[in-house]
């Protein structure tokens, strides 16, 4: 009995030390991904992209000589719950830095939680204007996606009259505020502007207005299923013969839902497409395919952004010799990193990056033009 007890105690002690051993061996990085909710579609590709980045970072010696380990949490939930999930990783599991691919409401809640005490890289396409201590943003903002693209398309496609349509929240409204300025600067005219509630799944009356307006270009800031439904109906009415379409969040999944028959003259502006034809982008997508299989969730700008987030974090940490926010903030400006998007440079807390314009005609994106090193011009609102 006694020996059994001693054996048991020894086993427990061994097990505990093994456990704590693994806790302190690596630097833990929290990766906040949408596994549920409206962006749930992007959860798997985000996880996969983050996993690839961590593998590369570890192969190159980790952060400050230590290997990194990713800990994931679902933030496709309301901000209050997302904050709880992040807090559990931070205080409960000892996570030393965060990568976040989620909506802006969650970002604002997390900034209130972190208060600059832990580095936080925010990665998706968003409306711009976020900044703060320890916050680094890699995602595209409206000024990056539109400032070079609108004048280019207006000249190339002779589209002077634009109709702006989006869902009714701040990202489309902020995007269109800038778009109007770019259209006016390039000598064009806005012939209509419309915001739809998320509950709308019929677009007939909007399409009628677009037809009547004589628009030659339509800027689409509808998201997800709304964008799919709108674009299907748009082509159904033959409006693809009247106007080109430009979207700032039409990624590979959305295009697949729109379908080849409905994608005639549909352009998308983004920092990443799976179709980018560069050696780095190609080796990224081939290692993605070999790691996760050819049936893996398709690569897209949202999912891939988590890769950039980790690469930027590692690059700043390398300059700062660690993950202390004060040291990182001091050296962050001007940090560069390599990504399938091209070279990224941190400027004012945002990444100046290549912006690609892709044509979805035929149901597959083809990059038709790339604009090099486009900086963000939004200011700092918080």
């Amino acid at each position: 009995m006694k020996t059994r007890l001693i054996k048991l105690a020894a086993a427990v002690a061994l097990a505990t030390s093994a456990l704590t051993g693994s806790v302190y061996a690596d630097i833990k990085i929290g990766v906040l991904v949408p596994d549920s909710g409206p962006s749930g579609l992007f959860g798997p590709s985000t996880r996969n992209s983050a996993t690839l980045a961590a593998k590369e970072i570890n192969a190159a010696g980790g952060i400050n000589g230590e290997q990194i380990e990713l800990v994931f949490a679902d933030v496709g939930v309301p901000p209050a719950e997302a904050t709880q999930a992040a807090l559990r990783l931070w205080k409960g599991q000892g996570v030393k830095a965060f990568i976040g691919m989620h909506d802006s409401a969650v970002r604002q809640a997390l900034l209130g939680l972190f208060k600059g005490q832990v580095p936080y890289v925010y990665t998706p396409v968003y409306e711009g204007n976020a900044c703060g201590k320890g916050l680094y943003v890699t995602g595209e903002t409206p000024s990056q996606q539109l400032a070079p693209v609108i004048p280019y398309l207006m000249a190339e496609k002779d589209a002077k009259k634009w109709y702006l349509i989006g869902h009714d929240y701040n990202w489309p409204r902020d995007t269109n505020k800038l778009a109007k300025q770019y259209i006016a600067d390039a000598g064009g005219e806005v012939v209509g502007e419309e915001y739809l509630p998320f509950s709308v799944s019929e677009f007939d009356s909007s399409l009628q207005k677009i037809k009547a307006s004589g628009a030659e270009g339509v800027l689409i800031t509808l998201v997800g299923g709304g964008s799919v439904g709108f674009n299907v109906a748009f082509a159904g009415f033959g409006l693809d013969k009247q106007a080109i379409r430009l979207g700032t969040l039409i990624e590979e999944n959305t295009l697949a839902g729109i379908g080849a028959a409905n994608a005639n003259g549909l352009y998308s502006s983004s920092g990443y497409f799976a179709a980018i034809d560069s050696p780095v982008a190609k080796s990224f997508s081939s290692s993605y395919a070999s790691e996760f299989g050819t049936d893996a969730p398709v690569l897209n700008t949202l999912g891939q952004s988590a890769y950039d987030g980790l690469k930027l974090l590692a690059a700043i940490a390398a300059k700062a010799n660690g993950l202390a926010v004060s040291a990182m903030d001091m050296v962050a400006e001007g940090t560069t990193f390599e990504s399938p998007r091209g070279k990224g440079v941190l400027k004012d807390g945002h990444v100046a990056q290549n912006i690609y314009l892709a044509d979805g005609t035929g149901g597959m994106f083809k990059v038709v033009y790339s604009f090099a090193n486009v900086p963000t011009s939004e200011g700092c609102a918080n």
Partner: protein
Amino acid sequence: MSSVLILNILWQISILAMVTIGLGIVFGQLKIMNMAHGELVMIGAYAPVITASLGLPAVLQVPVCIITVGIVALILERTIIRHLYGRPFDSLLATWGVSILLREIVELLFGRGYQSVSSPLPGTMSVLGTDYPAYRIVVIIGVFAFFAILIAWYRRSAIGTEIKAMVENCELAHACGINTSRLSSLCFVFGALTAGIAGMVLAPTIRIEPMMGLDYLIRSFFSLVVGGLGSVEGLMLGVGIIGGLQSALGAAFDQTYGYLGILLLSIFFLWLRPNGIYSSR
């Protein structure tokens, strides 16, 4: 009123009628508030996705749709629904659970992503002096023909009479030798099939993904609230008012007002005329 608006309203009414008829049959005749109705529409919309992924010719989507939706409806009826006939509130909770289950199953099979279905009749045609999608014109004509046949059949056929007898007094009908159990499951499966076919017909014009069913449940429910239960006439009135109001307000102002309009109207009816405009009972 422009001719496009008239066509848009006719289109809205047609598709809403197709989606609502099944919900109306199941609720009006069986007192089952089927919250999984939208998911049956969704499964129907996946029929062309199934045929495309199996490499089958497009014509086969009709039997594929009828078989998949029919089997799902039959299983649901045998395992869950038949125990809840005449218990609207219990059925509401149970079918809400069923709707989640069906969404998850479809997600497991096809993934969370969007699917696309190409139109069998692409392009536009000139109608009433305007260009309108040809496929929509065919669907509008088809739906109105279907309803004409359905009304005529229901009024004259023996099954129609048996259903009426069962709804009026189930026990007496049973005593008269009508197999009410079989008749009930027939009603449920028929209602489900109309939803599935509506989904299949809509598929080339909408987005297709596991969550899409919710869009269709809500407006169908509003149509029943406004029109009243138990008659095809009431149903047509309901879908006419809901579909027409949303299209007209959406065209005149914007879509927010269209949606607000049908919400207000539905609240008004639930509050002051819970039996709807055209209540047979």
